[in-house]
């Protein structure tokens, strides 16, 4: 078998750095997505190891690795797998490859550059939990990812790695590539299942809270993110103990983080979980190398468009969910968007709010109505048509989606009471609150920029006209 073997300088958007490589180890090869390359670099050894261990011990290994879900919520995958009710069959695996959270760019790379690693991850999960069919839901707009995954599945079927009697064992599973068609909300796991059942992608009412109990066709269903599954071959090859040696006890392993916006070297980095800080990432010489033109940092979104914003005050926070949470935000989907001192904050907030207003599925009234009103009010403020009353109105509309205190950062500097993540919400899923998040962060941290945009007087309430009664 002849392999080309010439490492390419870098994949689009990807910069190799010196941290351990768990999920991106093949990215530098220009044939990283081929079966030959995969087999030459330890491919399909993880499923062999699992088959030798048996399903229960495989599940145990993943549980011991404390592999936190990489989709956004950060829930331990091994624990999630354990929520399948005993004795209820069949069970399914649904792979969430509907990556569309603003700023997030990692699952697409994993699907385009190393699809066999994902396929092997699916096999390991199916084997461990007894999942009899796997649906690999790839975002519709990712045409190249679909081609690469389709080609890899065809290769894997032909070579006996997927389908009947895998590697000659009695483990058999089909993996079906499924296309999305453009809807952000489908990334929510119950909406993903609705979509896979051939319906509008609207989140389901909860309870039941976990698709592991009631999911696809009402059966136990594990929904895992692409990056989560991509970690499994490494864990089976190297063991949970080796995995937990990297990072911290509560956040082991590595994670992929996309850093975009006003940095010198925007890119996707595989960083050590738990210990790498935002300062390492944004200013590190082996990572983003600082802010463009050496400008000052104004603010950054730490975990995808849904995450409350951080500023310089939080640069030394590590990639550790609980630390980020108590500081008022979340690590979410590994997406950092950086704003430098030239950024027009009200416009930046509007861009994100418009995204969530546009992507509301319309099922919950506070999101459907609130999101679009937040967008309308914010638009008129940005366009210089707002009044002082509009600033309060934004917060009032936000309260209908997220009643009570809303999480924010920098409470000490601002002289406010600390409010940790998450928030209260009146909607089924996080789309509605996410329309308010950028408004709240921007108004809390940079209220002066909004006030400077107000050029109109407040309307005088009718009752006041005419003076004393």
């Amino acid at each position, binding site marked *: 078998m002849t392999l080309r073997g010439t490492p390419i300088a870098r994949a689009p958007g990807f910069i190799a750095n010196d941290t351990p490589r768990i999920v991106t180890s093949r990215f530098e090869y220009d044939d990283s997505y081929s079966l030959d390359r995969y087999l030459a670099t330890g491919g399909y050894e993880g499923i*062999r190891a699992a*088959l030798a261990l*048996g*399903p229960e011990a495989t599940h145990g290994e993943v549980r011991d690795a404390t592999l936190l879900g990489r989709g956004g919520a950060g829930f331990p995958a091994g624990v999630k797998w354990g929520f399948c009710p005993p004795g*209820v*069959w*069949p069970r399914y695996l649904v792979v969430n490859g509907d990556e*569309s*959270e603003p700023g*997030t*760019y990692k699952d697409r790379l994993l699907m385009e550059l190393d699809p066999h690693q994902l396929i092997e991850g699916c096999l390991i999960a199916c084997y461990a939990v*007894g999942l*009899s069919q796997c649906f690999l839901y790839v975002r*519709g*707009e*990712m*045409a*190249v990812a*679909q*081609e*690469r995954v*389709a080609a890899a*599945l065809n290769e894997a*079927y*032909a070579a*006996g*790695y*997927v*389908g*009947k*009697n*895998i*590697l*000659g*064992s*009695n483990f*058999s599973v*089909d993996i*079906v590539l*499924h*296309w999305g*068609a*453009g*809807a952000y909300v489908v990334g929510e796991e119950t909406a993903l299942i609705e979509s*896979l059942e*051939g*319906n509008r*992608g609207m989140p389901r009412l909860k309870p039941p809270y976990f698709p592991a109990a009631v999911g696809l*066709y009402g059966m136990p269903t594990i929904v895992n993110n692409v990056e989560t599954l991509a970690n499994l071959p490494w864990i089976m090859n190297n063991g949970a103990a080796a995995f937990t040696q990297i990072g911290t006890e509560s956040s082991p392993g590595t994670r992929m983080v*996309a850093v*975009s*916006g006003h940095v010198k070297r*925007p890119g996707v980095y595989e960083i050590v979980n738990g210990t790498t800080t935002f300062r390492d990432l944004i200013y590190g010489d082996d990572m983003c190398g600082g802010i463009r033109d050496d400008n000052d940092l104004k603010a950054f*979104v730490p975990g995808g468009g849904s995450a409350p914003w951080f500023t310089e005050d939080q640069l030394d926070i590590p990639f550790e969910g609980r630390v980020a949470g108590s500081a008022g935000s979340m690590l979410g989907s590994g997406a950092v*968007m950086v704003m430098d001192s030239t*950024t027009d904050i009200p416009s*930046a907030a509007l*861009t*994100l709010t418009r*995204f969530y207003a546009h992507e509301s599925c319309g099922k919950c009234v506070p999101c459907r109505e609130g999101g679009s009103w937040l967008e309308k009010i914010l638009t008129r403020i940005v366009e210089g048509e707002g009044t002082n009353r509009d600033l309060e109105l934004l917060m009032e509309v936000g309260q209908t989606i997220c009643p009570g205190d809303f999480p924010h950062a920098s409470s000490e500097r601002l002289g406010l009471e600390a409010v940790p993540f998450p928030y209260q919400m009146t909607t089924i899923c996080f789309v509605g609150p996410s329309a308010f998040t950028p408004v709240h962060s921007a108004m809390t941290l940079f209220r002066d920029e909004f006030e400077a945009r107000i050029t109109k007087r407040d309307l005088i309430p009718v009752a006041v006209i005419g003076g004393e009664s």
Partner: protein
Amino acid sequence: MSFFNDENRKLADEIVARYPRRRSAMIPLLHLAQEQAGWITQDAMQEIASLVDSTPAEVLGTGSFYEMFKFHEVGKYVINICGTMSCQLLGADDLIHHAEERLGVKAGGTTSDGMFTLERAECQAACTEAPTLQINYRYKYRVSTTDFDRLVDQLAAGALVDEIPQHGVLARVRQSIPTDRSVGAADPADENEPPVWMISGAQLRPEGGGA
């Protein structure tokens, strides 16, 4: 009432058979219809409805939820310019404005020669390469206004046909499950036993196989 050509009809049957319930094939079949005609026609919705045991109204109701399905004719090339945060921070608004002027249509419109439909799109998962756009869902990274003009010229001259198929064609490589390797998809109502490898006591010893 038949809409799908013979080849696609065969594919449609194959796709339906992959799912435990036919209705799950709804979105894949809408994609297949859009691939054949460039957009979703009434005939397509009728045939899909019969293939997934549904009604044309349900097909429209479901399909119209999703951004990618077009229920009217669109250009040969649908240009989606990302307007979400990282792209906006790096000049997407200017790029969209320039594209509107260059093509002579507002975002959402189609040029009179039927070549281009322009859309303002949401995050395309290429944030480190901002500003980005997609032409029929093929990426172009770090697009300047000059790049945009050159792209439009090339597309108009038919220079990028190999790289960018016409609207509706998504993946040019399809999954194909060989019948002798396929496990098959039973309706969950007909299947309530654990899979064989989960039955306790079964010793699993992989014996060769594979590549």
